[in-house]
């Protein structure tokens, strides 16, 4: 059944259809609607999970840590400063190997105040041990929430589903909603091997020395590596059931392209239109969209690129003193592979429009550039 949904509504509906058992929330623009929808469903008796309103985002994640340790399927949503306030607990959850699923609606961090989309909030949580997937449409938001529970519960790592503030969260698109029976067949109930149980008391997360700590992190590394396969396998299974397949990467018209736009999030769908416009001019353009950011799809990326390719990486994020974060990670993943040059473009920070025209201009600039790897990011904005 197709319905016209905002990105936030699609996220809430997916959490409901995943039969989330405990959700804890604290409102923040532009993610609040996700909670409003779940609260409304709870009031009507449709949402059967526990719904807890916490006093802060730090408490949200602490409450979910407890609920997930007790064996519940858990969900929350936040944005920007709310996510930043959770930071300490994000480490606790990942280290405790709890498959909590959280939607982060991208929004710029202050100062100065800014409500609009910017990926620096989620990318600042890069090293917490959470998986991260960036969505380009509202359909992908719904599908990725369902996929994330499946993948997270297999590898026992928490998963962040990321969508652009307003550009997706408050924009309405047709979304194909699977039936509850189909979702149940794809996503069986969460049955952890270990959980808090009064009949079998055990304690978790007690003090460990360096020998165990190193090995626990090494186990996490092995499970992150498995997650790369888990993302592709779950995406294929999803495709067989629902007709929409997903992987770590999403390539559009890349077959004979030598210069690619490399994008993430909603910019990925704008880039398809830019590629179509460039192709109409007879130019061999393609778009490579990164869905997965953690685990970073380094293996998939290495297998995808060909010597001589030029990558125009569009970063709606910025690491002060370094540059665009996707560009840095892509360079690191491809080093020292010769013949692929990576060109970083920082744009659209704090919600600036990244238009079809601007993406064409970025592509044309990189396509004409010598095949050298620029060190510094190029800053651009759409002045139209």
């Amino acid at each position, binding site marked *: 059944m197709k319905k016209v949904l905002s990105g936030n509504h699609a996220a809430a509906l997916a959490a409901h259809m995943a039969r989330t058992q405990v959700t804890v929330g604290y409102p923040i623009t532009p993610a609040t609607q996700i909670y409003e929808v779940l609260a409304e469903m709870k009031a009507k008796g449709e949402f059967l999970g526990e719904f807890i309103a916490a006093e802060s985002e730090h408490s949200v994640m602490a409450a979910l840590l407890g609920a997930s340790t007790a064996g519940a399927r858990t969900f929350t949503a936040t944005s920007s400063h709310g996510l930043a306030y959770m930071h300490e607990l994000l480490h606790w959850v990942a280290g*405790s190997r709890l498959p909590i699923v959280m939607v982060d609606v991208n929004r710029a961090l202050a100062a100065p105040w800014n409500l609009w989309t910017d990926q620096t909030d989620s990318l600042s949580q890069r090293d917490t041990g959470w998986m991260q997937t960036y969505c380009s449409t509202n359909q992908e938001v719904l599908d990725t929430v369902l996929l994330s529970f499946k993948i997270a519960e297999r590898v026992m790592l928490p998963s962040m589903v990321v969508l652009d503030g307003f550009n997706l969260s408050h924009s309405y698109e047709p979304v194909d909603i699977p039936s509850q029976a189909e979702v149940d067949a794809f996503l069986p109930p969460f049955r952890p091997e*270990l959980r808090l149980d009064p009949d079998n008391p*055990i304690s978790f997360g007690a003090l*460990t020395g360096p020998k*165990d700590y190193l*090995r*626990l992190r*090494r*186990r996490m590394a092995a499970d992150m590596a498995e997650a790369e396969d888990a993302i592709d396998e779950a995406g294929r299974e999803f495709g067989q059931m629902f007709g929409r397949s997903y992987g770590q990467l999403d390539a559009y018209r890349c077959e004979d392209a030598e210069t690619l736009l490399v994008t993430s999030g909603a910019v990925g769908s704008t880039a398809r239109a830019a590629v179509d416009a460039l192709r109409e001019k007879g130019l061999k353009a393609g778009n490579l969209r990164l869905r997965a950011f953690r685990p970073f799809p380094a293996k998939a990326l290495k297998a995808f690129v060909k010597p001589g390719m030029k990558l125009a990486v569009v970063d709606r994020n910025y690491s002060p003193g370094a540059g665009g974060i996707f560009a840095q990670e892509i360079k690191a993943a491809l080093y020292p592979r010769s013949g692929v040059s990576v060109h970083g473009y920082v744009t659209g920070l704090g919600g600036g429009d990244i238009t079809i025209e601007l993406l064409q201009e970025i592509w044309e600039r990189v396509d004409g550039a010598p095949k050298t790897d620029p060190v510094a990011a190029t800053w651009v904005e759409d002045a139209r």
Partner: protein
Amino acid sequence: MPLLDDDPKAYPRVMISTRSMDENLTGNWRTLRPIIDAKTCTGCNICWKLCPEACVDLTDKVPSIDMDYCKGCGICVCECPAHSVHFVAESAS
């Protein structure tokens, strides 16, 4: 070089313990000891409510604090409305 070359997945994802947390006597962290003045205590139970270690006992009219677990955080000292809880140095007691 002592490389870690065994299968990382042979190692558990989390460390658990079956030992009871009762054994974890956090009272030995304490440097200041809270003392309740029975003469001014009103029995309002706020110390019991706010104790993060849940080690205030209400069996008697005047609460007692379980020194095996009290870390000496001082929340009861700060929050007692009657100012009936006072710190004394452990070395003095």
